[in-house]
């Protein structure tokens, strides 16, 4: 009787242990179908952000004669980086390497099989999720030199930039590099994705010079509806970007998801309110821009602030980006065609700082200490990314001679001069009888 009882007890304890061990294993070393499902979904959502999200957001903003060049630059980013990432990008970003950059141990995804896990998900899924980040980041920059950059130099630029700027930064923050050790918080890429592209874009805009007629004639968006579709798909896709960055389908992912939406909503409200007060009427383009600014800003912060904090992040984003886009740019006089710097650069920096400002659980560094860390990280990216971009473009200028199209090409538009195509053909001859 006694024996049986103890045996029973032991069995129960062990059952429990083995059960919870099973659960624990599931969280650390075993594949979780639920997590995998969410990250594959997130991966698809992040591609949706570029194709067609960003392509439309930017494509609607340019004049009719340049819309295809935008779409093409987004498509080719997916094409070029999509292949590069498998060949070397992933290895450079997530190979062990040192504190600055990864190594070549995973070139061509060497050593990865369907059974290799990264946490609770297949490494293949992790590779692809990160690959979609690599695809969108250089494409973000194209808004800065839209309506003038030639296609060949663009291709060379993003191909080099991804290796020289993006992979090291991704490694430094997410791949075990020094920024992670330093304590920088950048959950889904405020530094790596948005600041890096935004600040690089500013340099590119300045180095490539203004569009002919800029400042003299209005260059209104050829299709605001396309831009709104793009902003909407960015919003939807960004849930994968941010909540997917948890790499699991759990409570933190849920918080990241909720904060993403809330900050974005707050930014839209904020911007609409500012415009209303400032100009007497709120614009749709303003609301769409605000959405992107909100999304950018909450990106680094989404897992570190409370929902109420995310409202503050979003409203802050609407203020700083509004000022950057409508006052800083005209005052400084550069032609950042579609405001990549004002939205991604400034919004990303704001988000990185706001992460510490509104942090819900202070880190070891303390509240003030974390603010310091974030500021230092922001400063680092704000210096390194543009510097490297400056060097790349200087070299490319030597190689290509001219990075922009000539006057004739700019007048007829890049669609015809670079791609021999017209976006819309409803003209005489195409009409009905």
């Amino acid at each position, binding site marked *: 009787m006694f024996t049986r009882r103890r045996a029973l007890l032991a069995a129960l304890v062990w059952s429990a242990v083995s059960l919870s061990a099973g659960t624990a294993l599931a969280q650390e070393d075993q594949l979780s179908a639920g997590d995998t499902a969410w990250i594959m979904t997130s991966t698809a959502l992040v591609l949706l952000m570029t194709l067609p999200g960003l392509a439309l957001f930017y494509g609607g903003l340019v004049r009719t004669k340049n819309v295809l060049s935008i779409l093409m630059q987004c498509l080719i980013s997916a094409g070029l980086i999509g292949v590069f990432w498998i060949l070397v990008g992933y290895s450079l970003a997530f190979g062990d390497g040192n504190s600055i950059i990864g190594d070549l141990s995973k070139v061509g995804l060497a050593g990865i099989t369907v059974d290799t896990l990264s946490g609770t998900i297949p490494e293949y899924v992790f590779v692809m999720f990160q690959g979609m980040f690599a695809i969108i980041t250089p494409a973000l920059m194209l808004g800065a030199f839209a309506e003038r950059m030639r296609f060949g130099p663009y291709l060379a630029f993003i191909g080099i930039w991804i290796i020289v700027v993006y992979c090291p930064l991704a490694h430094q923050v997410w791949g075990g590099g020094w920024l992670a050790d330093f304590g920088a918080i950048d959950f889904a890429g405020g530094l790596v994705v948005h600041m890096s592209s935004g600040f690089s874009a500013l340099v590119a805009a300045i180095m490539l010079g203004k569009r002919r007629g800029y400042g003299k004639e209005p260059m209104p968006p050829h299709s605001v509806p396309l831009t709104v579709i793009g902003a909407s798909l960015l919003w939807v896709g960004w849930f994968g970007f941010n909540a997917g960055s948890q790499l699991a389908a759990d409570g933190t992912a849920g918080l990241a998801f909720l904060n993403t939406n809330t900050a974005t909503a707050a930014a839209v409200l904020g911007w609409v309110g500012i415009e209303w007060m400032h100009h007497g009427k709120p614009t749709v*383009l303003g609301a769409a821009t605000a959405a992107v600014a909100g999304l950018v800003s909450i990106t680094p912060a989404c897992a570190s602030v409370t929902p109420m904090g995310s409202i503050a992040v979003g409203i802050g984003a609407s203020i700083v980006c509004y000022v950057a886009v409508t006052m800083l740019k005209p005052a400084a006089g550069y032609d950042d065609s579609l405001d990549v710097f004002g939205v991604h650069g400034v919004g990303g920096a704001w988000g990185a700082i706001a992460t510490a400002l509104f942090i819900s659980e202070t880190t070891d560094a303390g509240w003030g200490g974390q603010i310091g860390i974030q500021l230092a990280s922001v400063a680092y990216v704000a210096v390194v990314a543009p510097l490297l971009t400056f060097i790349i473009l200087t070299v490319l200028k030597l190689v290509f001679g001219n990075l922009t199209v000539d006057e004739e090409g700019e007048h007829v538009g890049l669609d015809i001069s670079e791609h021999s195509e017209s976006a819309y053909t409803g003209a005489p001859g195409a009409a009905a009888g």
Partner: protein
Amino acid sequence: MKLIEAIIKPFKLDEVRRALTAKGVEGLTVSEVKGFGRQKGHTEMYRGAEYVVDLLPKIKLEVLVRDADVEELIGAIQDAASTGKIGDGKIFVHPVADVIRIRTGERGEAAI
């Protein structure tokens, strides 16, 4: 024969057309144009940058008519198109040397 060309406000097109067909006009041609004139335009905004749009959408209407009908039809257009506000538009009367109906080859007044 004369070609009456009227620049009118777009939302008046239906009314003008009805007025003309009521007077027996059996054909006309319209196109979308933009007009600049005394009518002040509106302001558009693009990320904080305001600019004035003073080329406003108008409809251009062309009707070829017999000389005898010119005055009556001008009157009809004017009545239908007028709102009394600046920007109602203009009517131009052009001389025409000849007119041909493509389908039949008829010429002159028979081709109207």
